[in-house]
């Protein structure tokens, strides 16, 4: 366990983030250079992505307060907060939270900067963190650990980046908790390696989508949605696959689809897509060909597979092959969008919404019941709020264990 107060640790993390936010800092420059090389992502997208990911580290204090009642529960016993109806049962229970001691993280994918948050969270929970980065993007975790060590060698020594095989168990044997990202199959495979009694948190594959209420069917909403689609080329679990657009707004769903195409085309100059593997290009080509004969309109980059928007008069829950292919579905009502998503509850994650708040609330009621875990604004899909509960679970809360002290005297 790291013998520091939570405030001291957060202060160090703040200084680490300051370094990363300074685009001239050597570590930031090295990261941008090596990540561009390794992931093929455009520099503009990398810069924005790193800013998003690192700025989330600043939110960890607020997240601890929300998840644990108070961040100071990590330093000592604090009174447990009262509920909306006041404190039950007389004198307060005092509680203290302990981090996992060792958090083992297994990352997947090539979205740059993802490991920063979990690595920093482990430190804030006074725990060491052993990281296996993804094969596609092994660079960032190493650099982040180095940046922490440069600011504070003791905290830095609590971070280790290692590469172990997919059937090796040693990494999990000393873990207090294991956090794994990846496909459902790879998450399940890691779960099987984790000893009984070690907390396991798996984030398998998810699908996110957008819903546009008629009031918000505008070119501006289309531009924002295009950014959500373009960032990381739709590889993130928060990236929208499709947009259900309600009829009757300033832009018809069909015109909205065209506006999304225009916006994606514009983004190709400022935020061009990454290089693609041949298999991705083939899958995208096949999906585009299919859409050309099944969709009611196809807006697509003419000379290559840079981007595509397929428009459908009849809505269906049909995911995208990713890599900047968006499906736009016309709906008569927002309830219809929820109806289409209903059979896929366990896969649902982020729903990016544009429209008036009462309608947002109604949509959240029905989608929340199905399994969606996050309703955000269109244009903000890639920047989850500080208090985000990843896949509906308390991000920090799931990693601690509690000790409660009940009031000292037995009541007569």
């Amino acid at each position, binding site marked *: 366990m790291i013998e520091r107060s939570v405030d001291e640790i957060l202060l160090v993390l703040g200084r680490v983030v300051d370094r990363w936010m300074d685009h001239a800092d050597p570590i930031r420059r090295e990261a941008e250079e090596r990540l561009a090389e390794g992931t093929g992502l455009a520099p503009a997208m990398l810069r924005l992505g790193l800013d998003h990911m690192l700025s989330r580290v600043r939110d960890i204090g607020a997240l601890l307060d929300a998840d644990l009642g108070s961040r100071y529960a990590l330093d000592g016993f604090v009174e447990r907060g009262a509920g909306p109806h006041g404190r039950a049962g007389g004198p307060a229970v005092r509680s203290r939270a302990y981090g996992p001691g060792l958090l083992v993280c297994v990352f997947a994918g090539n979205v740059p900067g993802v490991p920063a948050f979990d690595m920093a969270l482990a430190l804030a929970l006074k725990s060491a963190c052993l990281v296996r980065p993804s094969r*596609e993007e092994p660079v960032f975790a190493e650099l982040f650990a180095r940046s922490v060590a440069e600011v504070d060698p003791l905290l830095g020594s609590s971070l280790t980046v290692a590469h172990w095989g997919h059937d090796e168990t040693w990494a999990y044997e000393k873990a207090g908790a294991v956090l794994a990202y990846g496909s459902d199959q790879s998450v399940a495979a890691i779960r099987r390696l984790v000893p009984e009694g070690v907390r396991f948190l798996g984030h398998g594959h998810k699908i996110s989508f957008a819903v546009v209420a008629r009031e918000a069917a505008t070119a501006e909403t289309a531009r924002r949605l295009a950014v959500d689609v373009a960032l990381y080329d739709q590889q993130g679990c928060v990236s929208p696959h499709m947009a259900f657009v309600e009829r009757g707004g300033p832009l018809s769903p069909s015109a909205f689809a065209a506006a999304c195409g225009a916006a994606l085309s514009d983004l190709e100059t400022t935020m061009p897509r990454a290089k693609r593997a041949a298999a991705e290009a*083939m899958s995208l080509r096949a999906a585009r060909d299919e859409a050309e004969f099944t969709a009611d309109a196809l807006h697509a980059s003419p000379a*290559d597979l840079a981007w595509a928007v397929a428009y459908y008069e009849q809505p269906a829950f049909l995911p995208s092959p990713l890599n900047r292919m968006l499906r736009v579905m016309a709906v008569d009502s927002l309830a219809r969008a929820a109806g289409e998503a209903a059979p896929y509850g366990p896969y649902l994650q982020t729903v990016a919404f544009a429209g008036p708040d009462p309608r947002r609330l109604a949509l959240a009621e029905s989608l929340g019941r199905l399994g969606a875990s996050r309703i955000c604004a269109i244009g903000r899909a890639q920047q989850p709020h500080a208090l985000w509960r990843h896949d509906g679970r308390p991000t920090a809360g799931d990693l601690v264990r509690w000790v409660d002290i009940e009031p000292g005297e037995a009541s007569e």
Partner: protein
Amino acid sequence: MEALLQQVFAGGNFDFGSVALQVFARQFERCAAYRRFCEARGKTPTTVDDWRAIPHLPVTAFKHARIYSGVGEPAWYFQTSGTTEGPELRGRHYFERLDLYAACSRPVFRHFFLPGVDRIPMFMLAMPPETNPHSSLSWYLRQQEEAFGAPGGGWFVDADGLRVPALIAALRNLEGPVALLGTAFAFVHLVDSGVRLKLAPGSRVMETGGFKGKSREVERGELYSLLSETLGPDAAYVNQYGMTEMSSNCYDQTLLTGSRRKAGPAWVQVRMLDPETLAEVPDGTPGLVAIADLANLYSCAFLLTQDVGVKYADGFEVLGRAPGAEARGCSIAMDEFLKVNRP
């Protein structure tokens, strides 16, 4: 046009590019779905002067649109086979008449599969056209049987599957070389039956198509080695590359040069295209298989398949169906999603 193609099929000299452009002009005019596809790419018979620039229609179009360039109503259509997974749409290949189709397949079959052989008993591991009338494979096999079959063969698949005992009995009745022809998955069923035979030298096997969930998947080299245990060491193996959406076929050159690389007739040009730009990739580089089959006069002669292949100076190889891409991140990509959520 038909007369010209008949001459081409008979081995007459012709200029591929100029015939291709004529076929393109005709199909652009007659097939509305293809015309729209071309116009969306700014390609019309007046703007295209090199056959390589003719837009290649994705074969998925046959599932969703009427790809017909004949006059009047089609005399017949062949239908793509579905997989066992789910009620997917099937593509239809329409023919104004079938004589061209018959004329284009026989000389090529003979050249690659029966060099130096006039007739041979043919054992079909496929349903006969009488029970599977819209199968292009059944129709094609019947054409070859009529032209090259010798007594003693027959058809050995019915609605219940491969009739192994009947096939064995018929094979044991014959002494000389025989030909076995059918789908790859039917041959897997034959292997899995555990039967052991010894075919005479000069015997040959032609298999085609994928497994489509109808048998276990077996890599082609493994299938041939398993088959040589089942059929004995003396049979030769030829893979036929064709599809319902094509009229012509390509074959391994095993019986001609010993090469497993495929070749086709002069009226078929096979190129590999970069899936990103659809530009032709250099020899030795994998790409999407694009086929210009001038015998496809009544539908569309210019096809983009979903197969991945590599071209070499002496033929081409088909590596298989383009893989469904897996997401690199934590989102689930469409292909994976469909794999686990088949209706």
